[in-house]
Every structure is written in C-alpha cells, then in structure tokens.
C-alpha cells in the first residue's frame, strides 16, 4: 500500500485559500465572485492508483507539503495553470473507502466532505481510478459520486490495461457513472491534455454541475450492508464496460511473489535488498557527505582569512558555517534514502518486505515495515525517523520512532573509535569486538525498549497486518525525484532552522563569558616573539600553537559550558566522569560526535588534533590525570563512557525531526528523558562492574 506517498501527499486547507483571505481584508476588494475565487480540485484515489504521479504531472515542482492542522497526516497542495485559469490542486491521502477509521483516510474523507473546521469542501473532485482493477477502484468512485459534488474520473494506467488486454468502453462507463471520464496514463503523460481541458471546462462553469443523476442503487439499499451492495454494483458496472473474459492478467506478479513472499527465499531476498539499501545510505552517501564537509571547511578557512576579529571569526566559522554545514551534511543520506524508498515502494516490493517481516517484527510489538527505519537508523536517525511514515498505524509508527535512535548511527563511530583506541591500542581484534558489541547493544536495547513500550505506554500491540500487494511495476523516476526533493525541502526548512539556532546557542555556551588567556600562554607568546626575532621560526610556531591550545583550553573551561560541567560533576561522578568529560557531554548534547573535538580542546591538544592527528589526542587522553594523579580514562570510565554514548539521546537534530513527525513536544522530550536515563543507569552499572573487575 502506498502509504508512504499517501502521507507524503498532501497540506493545510487553510493554505489553500490564502489569496482569498487576503482579498477579504482589502477594503476595496471586489465582492466575491465565482470567477474570481480560486477553484480547488481535490485528488482522491486508492493507494497505488497513480494519484501522486498524476498530481506531479499536473503541478510539477509547484507543490507544497504540509500537515493537516494538528495532525501528522500530510497532504500536498499545488497550483497549476490550466488554460487561462489558476487552479489549486489538493492531493489527499490515498484511501480505499470513505468509511475508514484509519486517521489519514478519515482525514481525507472529512476534507472531501468539508467537515474539517474552517476548511470548506473542494469545488470539485478528481477521482483517480486504476483501469487494471476497476471492480475495486469503482468502490471509492461510487462513494465519492454520492457526495453530489462535481466529479471527474481519471481512468489511469490505460497503457497497463491495454497490455493486459483489458478493454474498457469509456463512453459506457461515462453513462454508468454520470460524470466525465478521461482515460489517461499519468506516467507517460498520455491523455493529460484532455484531462486539463476537462478541468478547465469544469472550472469555467458558472454553476458547477454535480453528478446528480448518478444512481448506484446504493443510496437506500446500501444502508444495511454498504460493502456488499456497493461491490455488487461495482461488479455489475465493470461487467458492462469491460471485457474481463479476454483479460490476460499477467502471471509475472504471481511468479515473483512465489519467490519473494516465501518464508525462506523471501527472507533471503529481503536481506539482500536491505543490504543494498544499507550500502547506499551508509557507504555511497559518504562521498557527497565528505564533499559537503570539505566544502564547508574550505568556506570556513576562507572566511577566517577575511575576518580577523576573533569573536566574529569564531561565530562565523564555528557557529554559522559549521552550523549550516552540520545540517546540510545530512542531506545526502536523506535524499538517497527517500529516493531508494520511493523506488522500492513504487515497484511494489515494499509491501512484500512488510509481508515477509511481519511475523518476526510483530513479536516485538512492531510492524513488518518498521524494518526500514530501524535499518536506516544505523546510518542516521534523522532519515530513519522521517522514513517511519511508511508505517501507517500511528501507534506502530510512534513505537518505531521512539526506539530508532538507539541504533548505532554513523555519528557514534568516531566516539567508538576513540574509546576502543583508548582501551585496546595494541589489539585490533579486541577493538573490533568492542565495536561489534557496541552495535549489538544498540540493537538489543532498541528491540527491548520496543517490547517494553508495547507492554507499558503503547499497549495493544501491533495491529494485524492488512496490506495490498500491488502488481509489480517499473518505478517512476520523476515521482521518486519529486518525493526526494520534497523530503529534503522539509528537512532543511523545518529542522534546519532549529538546528542552526541550537548550534548557535551551544557556540555561545562554550565561548562566553570571555576569559583572559592563562599566564603560561602569555609567557609562551612573548617567548615565541623572541624566537622569531632570533630567526628560529619553527620553534616560534610550535610555541604559538601550544599557547593557542592552552588559551582555547582555559577559555572553554571558564565558559558557561565549563561552569555547567562543574555544577553537574557530582551527578555524573558515579559514572566515572569528571567535570572535563561533563563539558564534552554538554557540548555534544546537540551532536554526539562533537565530544571528540571538545575533549581535544579540554585536554589542550587543540581542535585540529581531533581531525588530523588522532594518535596525539589518544595519547594525551591516555595520560590525562585527575587532580589526585589517578588516570582519568581507566577501563571502567572508558566502558562507562562507551555505554553512555551507545544509549544517550545526544542528537538534537533527531529530536527536532521527532517533534515534527509526532507533531508534539511530549514525545521528543520523553525520548530524550528515557534514553538519557537508560544511558545513566547502564553506564553506572557498567562502571561499577569494571571497577571491581
């Protein structure tokens, strides 16, 4: 079922009439006339009927995605110039019938009936019908026709129907339905021009004619058993207009399904597809990510060379450019994930993946489709949380979103690398074991928490599976591109701005209040000047670098972040951390990988060491001591830090995305709280176990 597109489909009906509202406010505005106001056309249709493809063909890039007010159900709104008229198209979530109680389908039905508060019903409805499955698709068309609104039926996938030798008598269907029926093939663009003409004609009517003379014999008889009667009607209409006997239903889908839904070969195929999928978002995405990183580093260096005032330089380079780069670096993963997911869904495979995985995942209180976000979370939790939209049930989606960030994302790798290097500098095997253990811990905790949530805050378990297995089809690249573009836009616009604000706040915390450079650094600078005079340029540079590291160290220790670190030290002492590690935890609250560079500054190695010279950083950390001379990074502290970073929710970008996807502040806050508590408790236990050992 194409819920993914379904959810990616649609926006606020309040947004549909912005111009009209503005007209209303202007005092000299003309009185509202039918020809002046914007004509709105709602698109409805079964999932997989090609509704999104048609919407894209009519509007292209001029579409906006937004939630229905107060919900997480999306719709898309686009403007299209048809003839000489500008009309507004609303792509409603895909649905099978108007009586559904699923939230997104219910919203679509309510929007169609004009039952949503403050949002009038659309002027007309465009019903997208899959010509290869007329009996089922006419069910919804019949229900829509009974709403007595102007209706155009777009008979989509005519090319597929022809290939299957299904012949449909369009004029007969027109007579049966009592409304305009336009045969089209949205993917190839065939028939779109005629559809545009029909829309223009309808929009130009002084009085909109509804499909009033439509009779399905359902109006009275259907009251008792609506489904049975209506399906009898769709069957009789189909029999009249279609030569089903001659139809050659393709065997391809059945043959493929024998293999792809099989308990053994199906699971093997699933694992292969997911492996390829993971390869794309983990390894292929690395190339553009490194390019973006490099690009922003270059811009940063250039800006630093142009702006010499220290504070402004640091704000621009670390705060603004670093912040923007930190957002855009997620884009390759988001784009690749959504592109691949759109293709997977369009081919029809995603429904099979959900089918194959359903039984296993259900035991954990998660639906089969949860596999996609949970796997993606191993690359990055942000696209993972966004991709949880493939799961249609809100409870299941929430459970998946809550546990996905426990999976080891790629931002954890530098931390795992640092800790394994501290623990086992000489033994790559042991280091590899720790790495594997860290990944396994993430998975075990994520699945365990899903199991616990099912029994506590999210009772009821996963809903029984009901999923349409659509025929396998070649995916549409245009749809995939537009969908990817849409997701990327939402991320940059909605998550990006907040992430930038947070990174600026954290920059302020670690740069203010200002403190004078330490005496040792001042002396070193003076010495360096003397060396320079005597011609010892190398020694002068070395001294200056050391002085710079000392200054940065003292500035950070005296900053708000340093002060907070000292304040919270008693709280984290039971985990084996000191106030310097606390600075690392605070500064990496928005992005966990930051702890590596923060520790480099805190321990006076300089930020560059975290990037270029890891061994010097690790050496310094290994030899770092507390005030009483005991080493800071003992095995117990390292293990505790590792466990803390496996479990803690140190990624505000994820929290911002969770806020958007759950449309609440409660859930991201709960997530931060439960993950941090979990991290605290587990790190405490691990620290004390290793202290004894």
């Amino acid at each position, binding site marked *: 079922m194409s819920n993914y597109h379904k959810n990616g489909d649609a926006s606020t009906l309040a947004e549909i009439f912005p111009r009209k509202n503005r007209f209303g406010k202007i005092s000299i505005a003309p009185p509202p006339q039918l020809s002046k106001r914007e004509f709105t056309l709602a698109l409805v249709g079964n999932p997989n009927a090609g509704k999104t493809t048609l919407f894209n063909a009519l509007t292209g890039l001029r579409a906006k995605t937004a939630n229905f007010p107060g919900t997480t159900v999306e719709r898309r709104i686009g403007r299209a110039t048809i003839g000489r008229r500008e009309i507004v198209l609303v792509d409603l979530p895909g649905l*099978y*019938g108007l*009586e*559904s*109680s*699923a939230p997104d389908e219910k919203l679509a039905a309510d929007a169609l009936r004009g039952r949503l508060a403050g949002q009038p019903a659309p002027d007309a409805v465009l019903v997208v019908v899959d010509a*290869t*499955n007329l*009996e*089922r698709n006419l*069910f919804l068309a019949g229900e829509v026709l009974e709403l007595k609104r102007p209706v155009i039926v777009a008979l989509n996938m005519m090319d597929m129907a022809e290939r299957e030798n299904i012949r449909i008598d369009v004029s007969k269907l027109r007579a049966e339905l009592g409304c305009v029926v336009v045969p089209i093939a949205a993917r190839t663009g065939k028939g779109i021009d005629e559809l545009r003409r029909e829309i223009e004609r309808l929009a130009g009517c002084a009085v909109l004619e509804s499909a009033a003379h439509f009779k399905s014999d359902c109006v009275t008889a259907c009251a008792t*058993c609506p*489904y*049975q009667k209506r*399906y*009898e009607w769709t*069957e009789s209409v189909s029999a009249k207009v279609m030569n*089903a*006997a001659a*139809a050659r*239903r393709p065997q391809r*889908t*059945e043959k493929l*399904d*024998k293999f792809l*839904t099989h*308990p053994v070969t199906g699971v093997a195929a699933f694992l292969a597809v997911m492996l390829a999928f993971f390869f794309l978002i983990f390894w292929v995405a690395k190339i553009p990510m490194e390019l973006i990183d490099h690009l922003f580093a270059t811009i940063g260096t250039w800006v630093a060379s142009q702006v010499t005032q220290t504070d402004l330089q640091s704000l621009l380079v670390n705060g603004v450019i670093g912040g923007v780069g930190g957002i855009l670096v997620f884009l390759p993963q988001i784009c690749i994930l959504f592109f691949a997911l759109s293709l997977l869904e369009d081919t029809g495979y995603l*429904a099979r993946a*959900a*089918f194959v995985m*359903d*039984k296993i995942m*259900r035991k954990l209180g998660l639906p089969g489709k949860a596999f996609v976000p949970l796997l993606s979370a191993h690359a990055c939790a942000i696209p993972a949380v966004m991709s949880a939209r493939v799961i249609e049930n809100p409870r299941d989606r929430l459970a998946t979103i809550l546990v996905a960030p426990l999976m080891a994302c790629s931002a954890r790798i530098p931390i795992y690398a640092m800790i394994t290097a501290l623990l086992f500098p000489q033994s790559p095997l042991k280091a590899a074991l720790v790495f594997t253990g860290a990944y396994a811990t993430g998975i075990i905790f994520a699945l365990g928490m899903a199991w616990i949530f099912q029994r506590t805050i999210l009772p009821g378990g996963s*809903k*029984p*599976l*009901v*999923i*349409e*297995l*659509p025929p396998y089809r070649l995916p549409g690249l245009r749809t995939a591109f537009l969908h990817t573009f849409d997701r990327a836009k939402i991320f940059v616009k909605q998550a990006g701005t907040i992430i930038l604000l947070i990174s600026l706040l954290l920059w302020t915390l670690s740069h203010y209040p200002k403190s004078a450079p330490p005496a040792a650094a001042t002396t070193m600078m003076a010495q360096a000047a003397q060396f320079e005079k005597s011609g010892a340029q190398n020694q002068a540079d070395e001294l200056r670098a050391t002085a710079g590291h000392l200054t940065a160290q003292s500035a950070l220790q005296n900053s708000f972040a340093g002060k907070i670190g000292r304040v919270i030290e008693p709280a984290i002492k039971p985990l084996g951390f000191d106030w310097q590690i606390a600075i690392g935890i605070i500064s990496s609250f928005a992005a966990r990988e930051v702890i590596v560079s923060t520790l480099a500054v805190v321990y006076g190695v300089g930020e560059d060491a975290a990037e270029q010279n890891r061994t010097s950083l690790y050496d310094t950390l290994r030899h770092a001591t507390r005030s009483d001379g005991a080493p800071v990074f003992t095995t117990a502290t390292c293990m505790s830090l590792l466990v803390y970073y496996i479990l803690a929710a140190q990624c505000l970008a994820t929290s911002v995305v969770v806020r958007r996807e759950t449309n609440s502040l409660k859930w991201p806050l709960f997530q931060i709280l439960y993950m941090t508590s979990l991290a605290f408790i587990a790190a405490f236990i691990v620290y004390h176990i290793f202290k004894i050992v």
Partner: protein
Amino acid sequence: MTTAASAIIRETRLDKLPPRTCAVVRRIETDGEEVRRLKSLGLCVGRQIKVVKSGDPLIVKIFGSRIGLSASLAARVWLEICAPNHCTLQKIS
C-alpha cells in the same frame, strides 16, 4: 451471481481454507479498523475469494488484487466453499 444456492454448504474459516480453493465470504466476526479496511479492500460478505498462499500471514485474491493479512484476522472470516463451476475467480487467474 455470487450466491451459492446450488453449491453444497461447506463452511470454513479463511485461515483454514486450502490454497486455490474458491470460496464466498459469509460473515465476518467483530468490527474494527482492520476489519473495515478488509471490507473496503473488497473482502466483504458476498465476495468470492481465493487463498494464493496459506500460512501466517497469508495472501488472498479478491478481484484482481492480492491482499496480505495476518492469520489472526483471517480467523474471523467465515466462508462457504463454492462448487467448482460457480467460481468466477477461477477464470481470471
């Protein structure tokens, strides 16, 4: 046309229906979101259906579409097996 007046009455549950056997839905126990979805997908009283793949979850065929559903849900659907010559689905696939 889907009534099986002349067919031998053989009632069974959807999760017990052998593959490739055509049957007519007689009643569906309880209601709820999933049952409503099943009905709007075409799995409602009076429809002919056929199991394509049994097990849990199983695949059924209704009209031209294939629907995957949990066995727990299938257990709520009661069917009457059609006489061989009464099935229209047989022709389609």
